[in-house]
């Protein structure tokens, strides 16, 4: 290798390192901060590695706060939104791509349109409906709100997946004497699994992240999801960094794991508009 090539390679690796540090440097600092005792938080100058490594912030957020409850609420709401959005979405996508009737196109374009609506536009009227139905401060009310936010996108994505599947396989199943329900469950659905995984990941990520609706719909501590719960550790008197840092790391773990598991297919096949945020 000649000198200029070697130099080019070195510059390239510096770029890679710079890019990676830009992306995860702040996250590493948060992780390292969460692993030091509270007395070291405000040390000047700060040390890069904790002087004493400890998990006490992690124990205390579980012991001293309602964090477990926030977490459980978030988990329940995610499950609820995922189940409804996926089942209703698959059924709708099956209908929109496998049958011919008027208004099909319109419905699928409307779901794309609904997916792009600003959430501030929906939060005001949905809040009013929740008040009328006495669903404010209830987890079920929040689940319905999240279905409103996620379902249009699920329908849209599942439709584009369904369209790529050859209809002939299902038709030959009919000819072999298979009923429609069996053709759906044994032929179409198994092929649709990548699409279903995609919408489950999307719905989970969306609901796990969501802050605005959770803030507006829920008033009592016991019903909070973690985005609002974590933020409540910032009070007007004090900021409980020991809870915030460890809590933030804990809630990031599921999101990061899911991303790591799905990232290959994310980069490979998704194309534009596959994700929202």
């Amino acid at each position, binding site marked *: 290798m000649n000198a200029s090539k070697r130099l080019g390679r070195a510059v390239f690796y510096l770029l890679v390192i710079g890019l990676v540090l830009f992306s995860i440097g702040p996250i590493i600092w948060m992780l390292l901060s969460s692993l030091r005792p509270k007395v070291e938080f405000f040390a000047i100058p700060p040390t890069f590695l904790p002087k004493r490594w400890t998990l006490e912030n992690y124990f205390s957020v579980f012991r001293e706060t309602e964090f477990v409850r926030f977490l459980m609420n978030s988990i329940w709401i995610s499950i609820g939104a995922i189940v409804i959005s996926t089942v209703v979405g698959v*059924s709708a996508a099956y209908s929109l791509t496998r*049958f011919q009737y008027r208004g099909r196109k319109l419905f699928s374009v409307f779901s794309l349109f609904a997916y792009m609506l600003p959430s501030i536009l929906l939060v*005001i009227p949905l809040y009013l409906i929740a008040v009328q139905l006495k669903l404010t401060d209830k987890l079920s009310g929040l689940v319905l709100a999240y279905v409103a936010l996620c379902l249009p996108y699920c329908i849209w994505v599942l439709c584009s997946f369904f369209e790529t599947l050859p209809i002939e396989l299902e038709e030959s199943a*009919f000819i072999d004497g298979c009923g429609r329900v069996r053709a759906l469950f044994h032929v179409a659905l198994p092929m649709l699994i990548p699409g279903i995984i995609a919408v489950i990941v999307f719905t989970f990520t969306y609901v796990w992240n969501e802050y605005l609706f959770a803030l507006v719909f829920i008033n009592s501590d016991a019903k909070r999801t973690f985005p609002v719960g974590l933020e409540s550790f910032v009070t007007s008197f004090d900021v409980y960094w020991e809870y915030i840092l460890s809590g933030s790391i804990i809630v990031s773990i599921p999101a990061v794991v899911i991303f790591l598991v799905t*990232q290959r297919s994310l980069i490979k096949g*998704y194309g534009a508009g596959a994700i929202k945020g």
Partner: protein
Amino acid sequence: MYKKDHLIGIAFLVPAIIFMAILIVYPLVNSFTLSFYRQLIYETQGVYVGFQNYLKILYDPGFWQAFKLSLIWTVTTIAGQVVIGVAAALILHADFKGRGLARAFVMLPFFMPTVAVTLMWKWLLNEQYGFVNYLLMSLHVIEKPISWLGTSSLAMASIVFIGIWRYFPFVTINVLSRLQTIQQELYEAASIDGANSWKKFWYITLPEIKGVLAVVILLRSLFMFNKVDIILLLTKGGPGTSTLTLPVQAYSYAFEGMQLGRGSANAIIQFLIVLAFILIYIRTTSQASKGRV
């Protein structure tokens, strides 16, 4: 086979129709009518005021200020996301040791929960003990600690930086997946013709990713313009009104000022702005699926 049974087909759509009607169409209509009423949050019935909410908003200098801030927020965050996002995609597309790991690391900011990263930045940007001030002071860039989120002139720049940091991976993911479909023969032919890397980028890569970039910019404009959580969590629109963009203003009218009608009118105006983008997007993508972009 399928073509004859419309009714069974429609039956599969019924659950979706019900959910969309109750959770999206009805609220949208509701929001629209609400914008013609003066209604406080604890009232069950408002007073019809016609276009008064709209007129009030359009004559309010605060609205135009928020409109301007929204444009600044959207344009600057998108410019940053596109530049860094494309650069990152090009770097991560190259062949090198540890590429898989580097890719995962670079995408991470986008997949962390919003509240975790915003609180993280509050920790990093804290005036007294934040790492950013410490770093800049030890590099002698600044002389004394700066309150990044608490100073009017700096708050917007700070949240723009955070907006770019969090969302550039969205551009990277999309561009990267497009880069992987470019035929290698194009580059090989160009090499034979003696083209350098810059020329290859300008004459091959850029034209190939132009389509996906257009769609990504449209989508990101929509999402950034509508963004409320990250700003609400970082500055709540402050200090003063220095980061009060349109969606944050609508939120504060509706849920802090309790004026649902006025908040709705504000949201409807935003919707009309966004609608233009949505229509362009739907046109662009339907053309793309016909192979014209």
